[in-house]
């Protein structure tokens, strides 16, 4: 879908990088998200005080909320993987919400962005599994009984691969559908602010999708972390 007004693309057009910008606008906007997140983190961490200021307060609430939720879900040994999951969650949330501002677009409305997030989760899951369990990680794929292993191994492999597919398509489809609805409502009755009620719903969906993605990442990594049953 061609967005009518993308200011980053227009800026890059002026300085002669228009070709890249027209082909990969989602890459540009995902860099913008990264810059926003890194700047916010840097500004908040620059001077950490015992009596927190406004920015530090807000960020402390967010980070503390994510961390306590993660420890609830994964147990105490899951605290190690907090940076990975929190950054995936915050990145996706910022990406999703960014599509609601005119002149910006959601990088997650492109399937490549969501696929890369899902692949990172998939690789992290198996890296954690191999690092924690070593060779015994194979037991996770063999099911409860050894004679059942030839039956269980293909099923488990397919289920692990389909996790990538479902993580990718869920996020992509949701954000893409949301953007389509907003665009169609804009074309139909943009004068009467028709997309506005949809946008409130979209904020909620954005949050829920980011939440679900990071929650599933927690569950998958937690599953690789614990002993095979």
């Amino acid at each position, binding site marked *: 879908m061609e967005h009518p007004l993308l200011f980053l693309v227009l800026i890059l057009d002026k300085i002669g990088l228009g070709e890249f910008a027209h082909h990969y606008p989602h890459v540009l906007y995902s860099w913008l998200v990264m810059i926003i997140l890194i700047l916010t983190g840097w500004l908040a961490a620059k001077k950490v005080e015992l009596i927190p200021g406004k920015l530090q307060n807000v960020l402390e609430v967010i980070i503390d909320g994510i961390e306590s939720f993660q420890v609830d879900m994964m147990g105490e040994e899951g605290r190690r993987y907090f940076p990975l999951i929190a950054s995936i969650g915050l990145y996706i949330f910022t990406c999703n919400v960014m599509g609601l501002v005119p002149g910006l677009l959601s990088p997650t409305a492109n399937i490549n962005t969501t696929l890369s997030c899902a692949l990172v989760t998939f690789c992290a899951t198996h890296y954690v599994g191999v690092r924690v369990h070593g060779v015994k990680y194979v037991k996770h794929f063999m099911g409860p009984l050894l004679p059942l292993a030839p039956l269980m191994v293909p099923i488990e492999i397919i289920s692990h691969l389909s996790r990538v597919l*479902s993580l990718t*398509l*869920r996020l*992509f*489809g*949701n954000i*893409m*559908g949301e953007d*389509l*609805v907003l665009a*169609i409502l804009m074309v139909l009755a943009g004068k009467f602010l028709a997309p506005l009620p*949809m946008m409130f719903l979209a904020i909620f969906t954005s949050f*829920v*999708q980011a*939440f*679900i993605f990071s*929650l599933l990442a927690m569950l998958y990594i937690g599953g690789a972390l614990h002993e095979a049953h």
Partner: protein
Amino acid sequence: MKKTTVTMLLTATLVLGLASLALADDTAIKVAGLKVFQWTVTAAGFGIALAAIGTGLAQGMAIRGAVEGTARNPEASGKITVTMIIGLALIESLCIYALVIALILIYAYPMATPIAKMLGLEV
């Protein structure tokens, strides 16, 4: 489901617009090509309609369960709400898969070029 309505609208406009095109120049090949397209679009519309029916029923059941649970044990409402939202998102992803398939069928049907070539249409 708003997505469903939008997709159905798109389908209707596409089918109607192309049907009038087909009447304008009635080459048999072009009509055959359009028929393929018509069926693809119809499949996309009906696919997402069926998916929306199932998703709606499933989400209704999930919400009923959550509401009943909260009514019986109001203290557990926080945990129930979190679980319900997770479940709803997982159920909704089924409808979203159908939406993705419908969008693929309409905008990026992979067999479109081979079929057009087979019929002898210029791509």
